[in-house]
């Protein structure tokens, strides 16, 4: 029963009303955080960093683990930088500072250990330290329920846990990489974290083997397939303003989405002894692909980590799912994985690998550390003031700012260009070429726009010697760098 007027409108369709409301201001940084959260919740994003990839399909646990060896001090900075950048650390020795500012609560200390950066881009190493007698022994990775960095301008950042060499110690180490639109050097920053959960991942003791299972259960190979009702009709031909590239992408997604899928089998095949929360509903071949429908109930205790096939004759050949789509029925999430394995003859050569992720515990609390980005800014600025065209839009390149870790390009938008599409397509439009012809691989890139200005930040995968940079390409412009 309801008697509040606003409740009467809960189920009323207002889609045809002419609703005009004021939009809130929202910064690029805020948008980035919202998008990051949405992608994590939707389990859509595969994070990449330093050229290595990892995905843990548990939404709350998409943390890339980097592996490092022994402790190594390098020019007063944390050994972590040396392990991240190897010999190229020599190019960033002047750019870092030890911070060691911390905050303790509930037996946990958050310590901001060090920072390294240029005018707009930075790396921050921070640690969680448990009180003496406690350790992170069983936890393979940690996920923060909330983590934010207060910075004075718009920007974006991402963070990763770094695998500890000493699993028995009481410290877990993380790196946060970010960039800002305005100068960050000399600013006060605040790192806030709240409520973190520790997870353990392990391979199952009694692993599910698709080949032997299907050999022993021939009925799974003779199933009547059903039409994939999730496949939408393809109507892009009627949309005029799609670019060729976008049409190709839509076509590709359409091609990957199967026309037919396995029926609901309710087979309940376990993936690990004693764990009822994760099981296989059905497995079989559809349209010359191996398909597996895996159920994951909404249990907080267990989830499925990485899942992939390895060629038993060549362990370097790893097959991840070509395509995956989720379905939810009666509070159970089903994930339909499609692998490029066409039949039993091919499957004979592949073995399935997966991890079970076990939630260990959640520590409730809030920690925040304010510190100064007090490092030497070695950024070199070059004034350009030339017009450039990027993806059909005109800009004026005002300045380029370069350091061994990143490139920042400041652009002025051309206000006389009236385009129907106000979105700035800047991804992949800037590159750095070394004198020996090598193209520098970015570890991350981002852009920030308002109606007048745009800036593009490119963080390099590895630090570079700026003296070895040959040219910088921005849209249709080449700037020789010497």
């Amino acid at each position: 029963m309801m008697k509040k007027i606003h409740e009467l409108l809960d189920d009323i369709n207002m889609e045809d009303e002419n609703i005009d409301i004021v939009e809130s201001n929202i910064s690029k940084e805020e948008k980035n955080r919202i998008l990051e959260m949405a992608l994590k919740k939707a389990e859509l994003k595969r994070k990449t960093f330093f050229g290595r990839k990892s995905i843990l399909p548990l939404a709350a646990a998409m943390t890339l683990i980097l592996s490092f060896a022994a402790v190594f001090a390098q020019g007063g900075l944390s050994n972590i930088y040396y392990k991240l950048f190897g010999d190229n650390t020599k190019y960033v020795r002047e750019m870092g500072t030890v911070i060691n500012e911390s905050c303790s609560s509930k037996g946990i200390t958050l310590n901001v250990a060090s920072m390294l950066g240029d005018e707009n881009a930075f790396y921050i190493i921070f640690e969680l330290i448990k009180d003496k007698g406690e350790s992170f022994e069983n936890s393979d990775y940690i996920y923060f329920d909330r983590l934010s960095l207060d910075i004075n301008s718009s920007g974006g950042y991402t963070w990763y846990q770094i695998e500890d060499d000493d699993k028995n110690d009481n410290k877990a180490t993380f790196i946060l990489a970010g960039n800002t639109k305005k100068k960050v050097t000399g600013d006060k920053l605040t790192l806030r974290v709240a409520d973190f959960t520790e997870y353990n991942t392990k391979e199952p003791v009694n692993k599910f083997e698709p080949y032997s299972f299907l050999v022993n259960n021939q009925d799974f190979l003779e199933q009547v397939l059903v039409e994939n009702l999730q496949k939408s009709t393809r109507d892009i031909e009627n949309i005029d303003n799609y670019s060729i590239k976008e049409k190709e992408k839509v076509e590709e997604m359409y091609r990957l989405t199967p026309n037919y899928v396995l029926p609901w089998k309710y087979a309940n095949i376990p993936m690990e002894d004693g764990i009822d929360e994760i099981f296989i509903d059905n497995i079989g071949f559809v349209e010359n692909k191996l398909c597996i429908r895996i159920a994951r109930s909404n249990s907080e205790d267990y989830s499925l980590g990485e899942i992939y096939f390895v060629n038993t004759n060549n362990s370097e050949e790893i097959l991840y799912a070509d395509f995956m789509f989720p379905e939810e029925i009666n509070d159970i999430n089903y994930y339909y994985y499609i692998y490029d394995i066409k039949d039993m003859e091919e499957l004979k050569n592949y073995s399935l690998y997966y991890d079970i992720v076990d939630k260990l515990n959640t520590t409730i609390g809030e920690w925040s550390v304010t510190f100064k980005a007090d490092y030497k800014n070695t950024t070199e600025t070059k004034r350009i003031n030339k017009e450039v065209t990027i993806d059909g839009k005109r800009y004026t390149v005002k300045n380029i700012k370069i350091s061994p870790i990143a490139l920042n390009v400041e652009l002025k938008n051309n206000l006389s260009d009236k385009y129907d599409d106000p979105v700035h397509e800047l991804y992949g439009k800037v590159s750095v070429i070394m004198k020996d012809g090598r193209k520098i691989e970015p570890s991350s890139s981002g852009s920030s726009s308002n109606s007048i200005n745009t800036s593009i930040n490119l963080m390099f995968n590895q630090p570079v010697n700026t003296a070895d940079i040959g040219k910088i390409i921005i849209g249709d412009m080449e700037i020789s760098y010497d």
Partner: protein
Amino acid sequence: MNDAKLVNLLKYNPSKGLEAAVDQYSGLVKTIVVRIIGYDKQQDVEETVSDVFVELWKSIGNFDPEKGQLKNFIISIARFVSLNTYNRKILKHELIPLEEDDLKFDVDLDNEVSKSINKEIIRETINSLPYPDKDIFIRRYYLFESVKEIAQYLDLTPKSVENKLYRGKDKLKAALINNGIII
């Protein structure tokens, strides 16, 4: 980006689609979210805004461009998600003062049959309200706009908006009863 393109991206390339949707509609969604859950913690606002976009992705198959605009579809999701977040809060502020929001009689929206009939009556009653009463009603009770904001938007005095809301509420009550609402 136009709506058709965005809908297709959400269907076929969800990561890109979400990116475009957040870029285009996060300001709008934030307005709704802040109106409903308040702005005590920025983190909570961002969490809820991100929930709205996840729901948008999940339910994009239900969007029918023949029935209305994508913007309104997103507003309805933002309202639904924000009210859920609001209802989970322990310490709640008042969305609309009770004397303004209270219809003074119960309407059955629990039973499926009466819900369907009552929804139709509510919709017809709202549609029958004259201009600008209908706008005022939707802005106040659907979009949770303040009286001051409505007054500014419609170029009326706050007192005039309050009077229209008061009279509108009486009209609604009478119309609901006359049209045979199930209580």
